[in-house]
């Protein structure tokens, strides 16, 4: 299945990536599993994605990392928001 992954702010800088389009196996069922998979890309990835304040969103909604992923989903990783 195909998903889009986006990174913002500090996390974007740490992994030097704004957006990925990923072909992933059907076994990758949750955000948590996706994080583990992406962490294999190197130390910077592992560190950024294990940050205790990391926020994850699926299809533009903030979710717990146990949230499921399905084909076509948009997943995003970012630090706490500072709008307004």
């Amino acid at each position, binding site marked *: 299945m195909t998903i889009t992954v*986006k990174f*913002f*702010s*500090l996390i*974007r800088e740490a992994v030097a990536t704004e957006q990925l389009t990923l072909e992933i196996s059907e076994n990758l069922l949750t955000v948590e599993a996706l994080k583990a998979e992406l962490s294999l890309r190197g130390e910077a990835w592992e560190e950024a994605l294990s940050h205790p304040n990391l926020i994850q*969103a699926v299809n*533009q*909604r*903030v979710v717990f990392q146990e949230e499921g992923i399905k084909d076509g989903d*948009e997943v*995003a990783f*970012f*630090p*706490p*928001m*500072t*709008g*307004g």
Partner: protein
Amino acid sequence: MLVHVTDRAIDPGNLAAAFYRHHPDAAVTTFSGFVRDFNDAGQVDSLYLECYLEMATRVLTDLGNGAAQRFGLRAWQIVHRYGHLQPSDPIVFVATSADHRGEAFAACEFVMDTLKTDAPFWKREHYGEIGQWVTVKDIDKDRRDRWSEKDSDQ
């Protein structure tokens, strides 16, 4: 447009004028936040406001609709800037109207308190050659949490 997220300059004066003209309800509140030229560390020369655009529009729309239902609003509007800004540039504009001023004020403040921590924008302040991501202030978390406590009281 109820929600507008844009990288172009926004004009809270024009926005307020239009909102007042179209919604002469009993009680109308507007709020606008502008870029500070100072922070705890001193002078701020410019601000970069990063945005997850699709999510921002969605979060702000849900927030406005939620505020409308919770406070019985007659009308509301949220406009949020992103991109590169200078001190004194407007960042955000919120307007609410209701039959009573308590609801109009509370809704406007609720929207501001909530979007500070729940809308996907990230501020990076620049001073000279130095740039630094702004971290969430405890006071902003506390102000956000005030409204959740009220939720659970109900």
